């Protein structure tokens, strides 16, 4: 009843092209933005802001990047963490070595370097597909991590390869509090999500999806294979690079190369599987799920411990987490391969009829 589109007819193509063509959606997104930008910083506590919301946003951005490459363009990648690492370490070096480098500029440089690396490791995609391509991205993952570890320049010759993110400031205003880091991350992620949405609903997005669905046909209708694939790698890696920089500057603070292992690549992949491949919203939903899931399990295990009067070791909890996690992945793939985003769509469809059954 509330969610009816009755009476909302589009009389121009421009109106039809909007990101949120339905009025109720527009209201909802504005409300969400108000809550995110205004309400949360006011009422949020330190823990939530710095340990949950900020990493959620950062990982959403990484998931967005991976979704562009794997979800929209159909190129399976297991190297997400490596691209994030490039972004983090290159942003660090930009601030370190270029005097007066503004922090946003450093993030952009991190992203661009990641994009370059992405394009190089994406070159094999011109000849190989699917699973084989995944192996190529694995090569990227291992090689980049090894390079960052071994080549002292990246970590300013620190003996352990660890870097410490420098202090940030924008136009004289220091970004140190959890609240400020959260807002900075939120702003960047929101803008980049908007850009991603715009990109995916225009010709670039269509070209990506064409290559994913049937690349021979795409080539026949004139879509340039090489340019499109490399563009996908480039844009995706840029997003992952910026995410990596944000990861370092707004969340971790002290960064070691081990923060960017294959494990992280898989985590981001799971985000888009569970959230929904080929969906901007899905990237956020998946990231939320995977960020909140361990916390939820923790709370659950505490209550089980309290209720049954037993104590579960950390190992038990984390192994159970792995089992449930893997099980959920399989569950999603069987039940709804299009992930939470599709479930959300179905829920909205049902909402349109509510409270009537049909």
């Amino acid at each position, binding site marked *: 009843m509330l969610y009816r589109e009755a009476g909302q007819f589009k009389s121009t193509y421009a109106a039809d092209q909007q990101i949120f063509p339905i009025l109720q959606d527009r209201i909802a997104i504005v409300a969400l933005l108000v809550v995110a930008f205004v309400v949360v910083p006011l009422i949020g506590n330190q823990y939530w802001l710095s340990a949950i919301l900020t990493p959620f946003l950062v990982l959403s951005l990484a998931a967005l990047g991976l979704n562009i490459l794997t979800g929209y363009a159909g190129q*399976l990648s297991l190297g997400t963490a490596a691209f994030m690492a490039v972004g983090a370490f290159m942003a660090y070096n930009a601030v370190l070595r270029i005097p007066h480098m503004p922090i946003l500029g450093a993030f952009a440089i991190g992203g661009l370097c990641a994009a370059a690396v992405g394009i190089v490791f994406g070159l*094999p995609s011109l*000849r*190989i597909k*699917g*699973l*084989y391509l995944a*192996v*190529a991205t*694995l*090569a990227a993952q*291992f*090689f980049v*991590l*090894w390079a960052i*570890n*071994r080549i002292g320049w990246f970590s300013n010759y620190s003996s352990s390869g660890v870097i410490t993110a420098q202090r940030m400031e924008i136009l004289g205003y220091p970004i140190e509090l959890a609240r400020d880091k959260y807002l900075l991350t939120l702003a960047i992620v929101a803008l980049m999500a908007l850009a991603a949405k715009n990109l995916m609903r225009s010709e670039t997005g269509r070209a990506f999806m064409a290559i994913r669905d049937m690349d*021979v*046909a795409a080539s026949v209708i004139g879509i340039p294979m090489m340019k499109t694939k490399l563009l996908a790698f480039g844009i995706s890696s840029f997003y992952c690079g910026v995410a990596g920089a944000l990861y370092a500057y707004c969340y971790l603070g002290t960064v070691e190369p081990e923060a960017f292992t*294959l494990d992280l690549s*898989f985590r981001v*992949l*799971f985000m888009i*599987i569970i959230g929904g491949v080929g969906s901007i919203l899905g990237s956020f939903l998946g990231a939320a799920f995977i960020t909140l899931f361990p916390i939820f399990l923790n709370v659950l295990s505490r209550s089980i411990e309290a209720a049954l009067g037993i104590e579960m070791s950390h*190992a*038990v909890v*984390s*192994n*159970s*987490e*792995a*089992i449930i*996690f*893997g*099980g*959920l*992945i*399989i569950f999603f*793939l*069987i039940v709804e*391969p299009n992930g939470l985003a599709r479930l959300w769509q179905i829920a909205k469809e049902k909402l349109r009829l509510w409270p009537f059954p049909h």
Partner: protein
Amino acid sequence: MTFFIEVVAGGLLAGVMYALVALGFVLIYKASGVFNFAQGSMVFFAALTFVSLLERGWNLWLALAVTLAAMVVLGMLTERIVLRPLINQPPITLFMATIGLTFVLEGLSQLLWGSQPHGLELGIPDVPIEWLSEKANINISQFDLFAALVAGVLVAVLALFFQKTRIGRALRAVADDHQAALAVGIPLQHIWAIVWAVAGFVALVAGVMWGVRNGVQYALTFTALKALPVLILGGFESIAGAIVGGLIIGAGEKLAEVYLGPYVGGGIESWFAYVIALLFLLVRPEGLFGEKIIDRV
């Protein structure tokens, strides 16, 4: 010169280890078209179960039998819970399901048996073969040779199985096209259960071999990843390819680490195999023994 031979031999024998793991992949891929990312965790699970039973005082052969039974059950459960609902989904979905399976197995293994590393002894010592080291001053481990022999026998048996038997033919049909195989009456579920059980057996053999060599510990699961370059070189569907690929990767890696490593600060082993695979893919995307894929429009 003798050092070189030692390095090569060591590499080749390490390659045999890789090949054993790759073999499990090939089996499942050949028979069901699924790339079983969980093979590494299956190896881990098998090894861990076996060694834990041994440590509890069980007789070697009994422990082996029970572990094998566990692997077979595991295979059947996997077929039922994971594969059956996903018949005819695109391969990428199945691959991602096996990634999920990996997590389940890793968690399960450690939940059941704990996460400390274990040593494993099989009675064949990891010492150099005496007459070789005395006569030619080359050190090759007895155990490594044993592992190579075991692998050889396993490969021969499997190759025969696929080529000559009725079930082998049915397996190949299933790998090609699930629905078509169903349509001609091939009992898909039975076949898959058989395949996964056999792959479980191979995983057990691989797990035991690796366990003796490197100890049974969590890092064993990463062997799955190393098997990937092997499969790329050898092709995903070729048993012989798994062996040849394994040998090449094993030897190549060792040689690179020993001769190139010092120039770039070492640690090459972490990525060398993948880069080789990558370069190989650029030249010959279907692997040494694979079949060329022709897109029909």
